[in-house]
């Protein structure tokens, strides 16, 4: 792969990542959100694959394959299953902040990410590190989704969004943090999602829904 091709492919993948994050913020239907999330997973896998191709590293190819399986396959599948279980009533997210404001916030967060990432770029300027702000922005948008979305499932998506962003940063800066740690991280993420999914089921049994605003029993006021 040529250098320009590599750079273009890299930036394309990063663009898709950021775009999908914004779309997740934009759309209300959970089914669409999950599909977009799968697309983001694929973009992330592509990013890994591009890096692998550029470096010619077998280990990175394996990592890319793992990412594709986990983030474009297993996790969206788990989410979809949870969505099916939850029935018709819970198909839409109900943001605490309306969509227009959310998008504005996303724009501001992206700016912030860009500003914050300057030293990261400055440490080792390269095409890959130039794209680091995208990863940071995805992390911040993910956190924003966690804070403002009221469905259990959309919080799950928000968490995964953060995780995708972090993985992006990892790839863009240092091509990963070593296989053992990488696998450990994946395992943890997977387990967290599983746990949250089981808890969603229990929540539905206990509360009759997955609206997080119902979770107000434990408080001091």
């Amino acid at each position, binding site marked *: 792969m040529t250098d320009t091709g590599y750079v273009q492919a890299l930036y394309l993948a990063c663009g898709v990542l950021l775009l999908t994050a914004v779309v997740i913020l934009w759309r209300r239907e959970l089914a669409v959100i999950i599909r977009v999330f799968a697309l983001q997973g694929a973009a992330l896998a592509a990013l890994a694959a591009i890096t692998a191709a550029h470096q010619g590293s077998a280990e990175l190819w394996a990592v890319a394959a793992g990412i594709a399986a986990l983030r474009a396959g297993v996790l969206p599948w788990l989410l979809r299953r949870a969505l099916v279980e939850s029935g018709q009533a819970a198909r839409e997210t109900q943001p605490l902040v309306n969509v227009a404001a959310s998008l504005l916030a996303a724009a501001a967060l992206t700016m*912030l990410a860009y*500003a*914050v990432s300057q030293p990261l770029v400055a440490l080792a300027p390269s095409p890959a590190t130039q794209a680091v702000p995208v990863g940071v922005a995805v992390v*911040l948008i993910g*956190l924003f989704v966690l*804070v*403002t979305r*009221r469905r259990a499932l959309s919080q799950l998506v928000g968490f995964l969004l953060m995780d995708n962003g972090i993985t992006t940063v990892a790839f863009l800066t240092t091509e990963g943090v070593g296989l053992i740690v990488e696998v450990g991280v994946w395992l943890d993420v997977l387990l967290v999602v599983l746990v949250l999914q089981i808890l969603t089921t229990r929540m539905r049994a206990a509360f009759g829904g997955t609206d997080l605003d119902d979770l107000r029993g434990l*408080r001091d*006021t």
Partner: protein
Amino acid sequence: MNLAATGLVVAAALGGLSAVVALVVPTRPRPVLVGLGTAASGAAAVTAGVAATGGQSFAVSLPELLPLFGVSLELDALGGLFVAVTGGVAVVAGIFGMSYSRHGIGGRSVQSVFPLFVVVMLLVPVAASVGTFLVCWELMALTSLLLVAAEHRQRPEVASAVRWYAVMTHLGLVSVLFGLLVFAARAGGDSFDALRRADLSPGVAGVVFVLTLLGFASKAGILPLHAWLPRAHPEAPSHVSALMSAAMVNLGVYGIARVGGDLLGGGPAWWWLLVLGLGAVSAVYGILQAAMSADLKRLLGYSTTENMGLVLVGLGAAGLFASSGQRVLAGLALAAALLHVINHASFKSLLFLAAGSVLHGTGTRDLDALGGLRRGMPVTTAAFGVGALAASALPPGTAFVSEWLLLQALVHGVAVPGLATAIVMPVAVAVVALTAGLAVATFVKAFGVGFLAKPRSAGAQQATESPATMLVGMAFAGAACVVLALEPAMVLPALARVGGVVFGSLESAVGGEVTLRLEGVAGVLSPLLLALALLAAVVVTVAAVRAPGVRAARREARLWDCGGGPMSARMEYTATSFAEPLQRVFDDVVQPELDVDVDHHEESAYLVRAVEYRRRVADRVERRLYEPVLAVAWRWGEAGRGLANGSVHRYLGYGFYTLCGLLIVLVVLR
């Protein structure tokens, strides 16, 4: 090992042993063994303390104890005085407790904490490093707290007293801790030796002094941090009250003397004016509240505030004199203050033990329900009488001597130049005088209403004398009162040595063997001669009256009842009515709350069926100072609960906004 060291080690060992014994022996012999052990420990401590004030010293360092800090102990004359006083109180309280503990407080925990309380009180004046001092100080708070809580099942007020005490003692600790730690940080060492050598800027020294003063004053029951005292002292079991009121509060004085005098080396005049001012306010306020109080133990508790106030007046005057180079007068004022500490310990332990005996015999400590105890409890009555005489600063009582010395010191305060002195000294004189006058009224009330006249309740009617050990305990305390009243000169050399520790070498200010002879200023007083003269005068009078052949036998006669038939106990003056005129006089200061409900007959508004009169003398300082603070805390708590409103979004939002803010700061600061 000299006598001081041996005594102290034996005292600590005996105390610890008693605590262990309390845990293992069965209920029946427990109070006796613990009481004996505590008394023996106290006796050993007295020996050690007396030896230390006699010039012996003792130092030991135990770095293995108290992680991060280590423990170091040193017994000098100043510490020795307080060790001796504490030990003395422990002796009488221990003996008294042998039978007093039988009703309700003979449990394992209380009985094992009691000797420990004594031991840690003995260790406080011996501590020779910041860490050691604070740990002993806080252990003292802990053990006394547990003892105050001893009777929590019997009375709901105990729990409230525990809360007040715990919070305020902690407040005091934090204040002392701040002061000492700032001191230690500037001095670069924890040991008192390092602190003594430290060279502090006046500002820092002032901060250290004020912070520690606040904490120590709180322990001594000085305004404005006194509120725990009239709650905790009455609610504790009486022999514990005696220990707290006669021994523990002294350690507040010790702290001020040690830190302000010994460690900080005197300091400017304003420190001591502050001490004097706090003392003066406390003295008047304490005795006023005592005069209004109808609860015997609460009255005694407030009287402690008064007496500690007087001690601080003396201590403040001593510091003032020392700061202006008047070493003789400083010695005189300090001797007065320390003598008052000793005297107060003797009569306050006696009074609290007598109050305990009353509580034991009648089941109440409400003066309005007592009366006529002299028939059922003659020894207790006599004991309380001796104590009341001692406390009311009348000759031939103990407090008279120390207050006389104090006034002597103040009279000569004119020698100190400066406007502040010219204003403060007359006020201090007035305060001491006013306190003396009110103390007389207070103790006449306590003794006259509580013990003389007719019983006002069934409990007082059926009162019987307490068991022998309680009487022996009171007898010891009473003997101490009498000896101190007649022969105060015997403790003077010790006081002079203590003065040397506090303000550097002071010239001996008071001398004499039978007669107290002030050195450097004119003034003599002989309590013993005074008492003898009084006795002689009584004998002469008796002889003179008997001489003309008057019949010695007395005929019993009816009381004057205005012809209305026998008088009942309900017609008597109660403690409340006794204090009513005084309360009117000081209406503006004490601000009592009156509540009069008049219940009329149906037929006419002029015929009264029943009048209900309630009077409550609330602590005004409390009202003004504590209630707003409590209200703020309450509002804070209510508002604070909003922080945890259960919304997971808000919780995550805390993190989100913090993160964004943090990132922005990072961007800006780069």
